[in-house]
């Protein structure tokens, strides 16, 4: 085992001891043990002393809300991240992996949500990539590769043609290929990240049959999901994480659905939300039966002046797509949008802005900030598309003065507005984007994850600001994956599940369990 660059302890090998085959040397109860792992990112403790223990020949579900730390842990096991503390043991030995390939070679295979197959190559080529059987001349022996693939697929009861191009397969079939590939490495642990998120019911049954078969071969399976019914159907045990912390591990036969929901959401609301009740006026924005085929269907809701409408839902609930449709980023072809009771056509963001809308996007790096430009350019970008231009020249003096004022109001911390935005902290970048939209004086403000990945202090400031805007009569739509935020800030909560509105909750009646049962179905 190569020396680790980290502070993790390495196995001690005394003189004369032989390096035994890992499985024969190991007689422990758990094939994979995650012990007290901690991982911190700037401003966030993604994992705080979590544990996870996988027995061979079992399916172990790992559950938790968005941001509970499931993916971070998987990335640590796969060697993408190095933990700040703690240890991962595989077959009783400390695991030292730094790349996914290391993990694979040590006997841990991972099937990511986004499948990593090469679409233009055949099933056989995908499975044996880098390990192709060669003939005497050192060329790839396609005949033997085909035969090996057929045998492997036959063993797993997967009916696929080894010569078929992977690009022609369905998502479920691609998953089968990934599983076959994992098995071909003789992996002892198979990690599956939400494998059913993109496949049909019938395909799920087939997948489960294969999982049961793998289980009977003694493979330990980590099954990441937040679907409750799957847990009861396939998992022997489950572990729940919440906000980067370990909550508990139980056999799935011993618990009820409600127990698990409570474990997933049962945090105390520690952050303070400055929500004040303010006067709620007329309906400003109404959405009727908005549908983007294949993405979301029949979304209808209203927002009134001074109201904060929270939109809750899990990953894949398509909340952001609804927001993008309303703002004209990806317009929806079916349904109506009414502003002040009048039908409007919104085909591009500029149209939406013309109707007094502003949209803080979910991913500030992807579609929010101009990272390489300075603060001033970032703040003014929306404003100058619609006003402050005389004879073709931007009224830079006025714009800069307004930007300065807004930056001061929002207390954006930067040495100057000439500072490049990528040098700012996440919280300040977020405030900068809010400043961009506030300068356009919107009447309808759509916020998609307004406080994602920013520290507690900045969060509270942004919350205060949102409340203040609502008090001034702005209609606010706030998409958030953080339960306390949705509960603390919203007058009403709309819950979405896989592209459909699954219910509305009033501020008074809403609680975490109710939201979760609407969101997880």
């Amino acid at each position: 085992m190569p020396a680790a660059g980290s502070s993790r302890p390495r196995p001690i090998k005394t003189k004369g001891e032989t390096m035994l085959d890992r499985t024969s040397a190991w007689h422990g109860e758990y094939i994979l043990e995650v012990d007290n792992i901690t991982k911190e990112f700037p401003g966030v403790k993604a994992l705080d002393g979590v544990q996870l223990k996988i027995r061979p020949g079992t399916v172990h579900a790992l559950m938790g809300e968005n941001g509970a730390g499931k993916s971070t842990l998987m990335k640590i096991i796969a060697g993408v991240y190095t933990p700040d503390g703690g240890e991962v043991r595989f077959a009783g030995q400390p695991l030292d992996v730094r790349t996914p390939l290391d993990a694979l070679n040590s006997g841990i295979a991972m099937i990511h949500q986004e499948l990593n197959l090469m679409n233009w190559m055949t099933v056989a080529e995908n499975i044996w990539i880098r390990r192709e059987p060669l003939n005497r001349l050192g060329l790839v022996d396609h005949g033997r590769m085909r035969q090996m693939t057929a045998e492997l697929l036959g063993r797993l009861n997967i009916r696929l043609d080894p010569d078929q191009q992977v690009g022609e397969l369905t998502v479920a079939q691609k998953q089968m290929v990934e599983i076959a590939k994992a098995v071909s490495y003789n992996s002892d642990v198979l990690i599956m990240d939400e494998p059913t998120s993109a496949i049909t019911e019938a395909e799920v049954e087939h997948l489960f049959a294969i999982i049961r078969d793998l289980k009977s071969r003694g493979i330990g399976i980590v099954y990441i999901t937040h679907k409750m019914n799957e847990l009861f159907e396939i998992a022997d045990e489950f572990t729940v994480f919440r906000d980067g912390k370990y909550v508990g591990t139980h056999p799935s036969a011993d618990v009820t659905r409600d127990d698990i929901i409570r474990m997933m959401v049962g945090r105390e609301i520690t952050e303070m939300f400055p929500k004040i009740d303010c006067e709620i006026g007329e309906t400003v924005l109404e959405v009727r039966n908005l549908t983007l085929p294949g993405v979301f269907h029949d979304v209808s809701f209203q927002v009134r002046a001074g109201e904060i409408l929270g939109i809750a839902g899990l990953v894949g609930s398509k909340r952001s797509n609804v927001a993008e449709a309303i703002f004209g980023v990806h317009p929806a072809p079916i349904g109506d949008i009414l502003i002040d009771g009048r039908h409007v056509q919104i085909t591009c963001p500029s149209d939406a802005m013309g109707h007094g809308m502003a949209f803080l996007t979910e991913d500030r790096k992807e579609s929010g900030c101009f990272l390489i430009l300075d603060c001033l350019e970032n703040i003014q970008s929306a404003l100058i598309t619609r006003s402050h231009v005389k004879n073709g020249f931007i009224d830079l003096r006025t714009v800069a003065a307004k930007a300065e004022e807004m930056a001061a109001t929002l207390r954006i911390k930067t040495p100057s507005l000439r500072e490049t935005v990528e040098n700012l902290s996440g919280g300040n970048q977020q405030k900068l984007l809010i400043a961009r939209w506030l300068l356009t004086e919107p009447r309808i403000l759509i916020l998609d994850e307004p406080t994602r990945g920013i520290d507690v202090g900045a969060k509270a400031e942004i919350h205060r600001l949102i409340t203040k805007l609502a008090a001034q009569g702005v209609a606010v739509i706030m998409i958030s994956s953080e339960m306390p935020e949705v509960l603390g800030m919203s007058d009403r909560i709309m819950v979405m599940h896989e592209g459909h509105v699954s219910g509305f909750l009033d501020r008074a009646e809403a609680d975490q369990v109710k939201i979760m049962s609407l969101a997880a179905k």
Partner: protein
Amino acid sequence: MSDASMAAAPRRHRPMMAELNILLVLVGISLTFEILGWIMQGQSFLGNWQRLSIMILQVSVVGIIAIGVTQVIISGGIDLSSGSIVGATAMISMSLAQAAGYERAIYPDLTGLPVVVPLLAGLLFGLLCGTINGVLIAYTRIPPFIATLGMMVTARGFAKWYTKGQPISFPSDSFAAIGKGMMPVFIFLVVALIFHVALKYTRYGKFTYAIGANPQAARVSGINVERQLVRIYAIAGLLSALAGIVVAARGLTAQAGMGTMYELDAIAMAVIGGVSLTGGRGSILGTMIGMVIFGVIISGFTFLRLDAYYQEMIKGVIIVAAVVADVYRQKKRKKA
């Protein structure tokens, strides 16, 4: 020129840094030639006004193209068609600029036309080519590299087809005046000034930088990204055509092969001048310095009587070095 928006912002001259660095490179290279000049030739490189003015004259035609290319690269694209548009425009404008009474004129009935005719015809042609580039890139979403590569081959073919390969000569005096003396340098300076102002103080410029920095964010900010891209490429085509007219007027003749490789020289000037190939960063000022660096290197090698072959090889090395420097700068910024 003071930056108007700085009036309200605290004074920290960060944006000037990039240009300052490039200026230092220019000074360094010039001094190197000066020293080598005294050692190898026993005379001064910089202390020769005539040499310097010829040098500027040589690069200012490509400089006009480089201005257009600069805004294309800032928007995150590339334009490979400039050199071919130079060739095609030279042919078109010269065919309409032939002196009155010249018997073997391309259009015997259209000699001695007022100078605006060839000028407008040439510019419109460039504008058209650029618009086609822009529409292809913005609406079909093919990569700029491919769209402008297509235009590069097509426009060159057009230039050759136009007279079946025959050169066109004998322009009217007023047309020839466009390329006389230091006129190309003057035209370059006017173009540079216009685009310096446009990129810094107008919506056109702000949108260009925004698209290069993050097209998605630009779109969400309400910028019509497609329309802006068409404008950017159309203007690049227009400036290539202007360069084509100047080249033809200066040479008193037009040939289908004119402007070959100009696109690469123009891109090189911009890149040497600190315009980032990943988009969103760069300035006209930088490109102007890049252009002078380019000129100094060429004229320096000639001055040292080094073989022309070395010049090309060194040119290649410098272009790659400039891009490596850009990548390195970005890495350093990310770490900071």
